[in-house]
């Protein structure tokens, strides 16, 4: 039975993506497909070493990555469920959390998913950034602030470190201005955001507006 499904996955991958997965190459193919920052590649290498997954895992992971790239929800959910028989991994947990948030608007489920992501990769900036965003939506600004701060501290683990740092700093400024009206801190955060990402129109606009108010 398992063999049959494996053959089916291999055939699908060959036909749709022109890729031949084998016992020998699937780990390398997965790492190539993820195309992410060194920290995530190290994590996946480590995951594969520790958990010794099978070729079937390789196929499912490959198909999950492709579904995630195409944002095709039914396939993302299907491959996530099929991967549930293997130890959880950060990439799929965070992919599902993003789906819960952006597609379904299930904020609490998304929050739980990003926390699971943090259990698997502690201090991960991407998870902290999303938790900052989720707590902002939940109206829990102290926790939102905490997570954005942690995203700034750990920004090097992110896919686009400078952009994530700048966006986190901008969001910290938004909280400071809405909740505390602390204009000095707002200015500091906006300046730091622009130092990390000079081409950031929202931050430029906000800083200009702030100077008019002061």
């Amino acid at each position, binding site marked *: 039975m398992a063999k049959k499904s494996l053959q089916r996955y291999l055939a699908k991958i060959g036909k749709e993506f022109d890729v031949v997965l084998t016992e020998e190459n699937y780990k390398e193919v997965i790492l190539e497909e993820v195309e992410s920052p060194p920290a995530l590649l190290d994590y996946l290498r480590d995951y594969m070493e520790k958990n010794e997954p099978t070729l079937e895992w390789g196929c499912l992971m490959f198909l999950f990555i492709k579904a995630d790239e195409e944002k095709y929800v039914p396939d993302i959910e299907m491959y996530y469920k099929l991967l549930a028989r293997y130890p959880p991994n950060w990439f799929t947990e965070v992919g599902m959390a993003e789906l819960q*948030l*952006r*597609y*379904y*608007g*299930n904020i609490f489920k998304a929050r739980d998913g990003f926390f699971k992501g943090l259990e698997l990769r502690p201090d991960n900036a991407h998870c902290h950034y999303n938790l900052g965003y989720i*707590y*902002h939506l939940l109206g*829990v600004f102290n926790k939102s602030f905490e997570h954005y701060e942690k995203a700034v501290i750990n920004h090097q683990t992110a896919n686009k470190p400078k952009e994530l740092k700048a966006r986190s700093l901008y969001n910290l400024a938004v909280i400071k201005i*809405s909740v505390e009206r602390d204009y000095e801190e707002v200015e500091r955060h906006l300046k730091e955001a622009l130092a990390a990402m000079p081409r950031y129109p929202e931050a430029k606009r906000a800083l200009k507006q702030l100077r008019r108010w002061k």
Partner: protein
Amino acid sequence: MRRGIASGDGESGTLQHFNFSFPTKESAEKVGLIQIECYLNIPATELNNRTPYEDVVLNKSATNFFNTFPVIKEAPLFEYYQQILSLSEKEFAYKSVYSKTGGVLNIFNPQIRESMDSELKTLFSRCEEEKEAIRLWKDRPSELWSNLPPKLVWAGGGKIERELILDFSQYLTRMVRRKEFDTRGDALITAIQHLRVWQFQPNEICSGMAPINAIIKEREEIYERKSAFFKENHIECDFV
């Protein structure tokens, strides 16, 4: 965004109707429930300056209230009134908080269940007595309800929040006019982002205060009133 019609009882007792856009059917329905929840906390001269809530608790039935305000029986939201006013012993137990709307700040939240309340779970496991856990839990800001503590969710809103929900509905409708959304998540998140901006903007309805502060202040006053009422009538309640 879904368009919906909500109605509320105006000062004169007539019904006011308005059109608005909300991201989901659930949130559009919640507008009506929040209005009712708030209305039940407003003292009425016809009830000897008691609130409808107090009248129903004292009479152990909503009959007197409905007879005093027969127009409600004709209202499109009458069944919601019946639903909210079917107060039983459960109303006085901590679990009743999960049947409350949480008000305008929580309009887009899903139905909150006890199983989602990790704070309460933690306190139950840490405290030797259940009562002690509930005593601590009811005062702690909760992320299930936009940082409102359970006691303020249970207390409900009042006159100001009832006006603010209409204000927010109109604000959101203006902000999302002619916008299209690809997914439910997109529509919901956009609406929540507007809510979080609106809640900090000084508002004439609450004399220039930010809605968040006015809502908390009013709920605290309602909580104090309910506490005094329960003590005066020797009614045991987990929230008092």
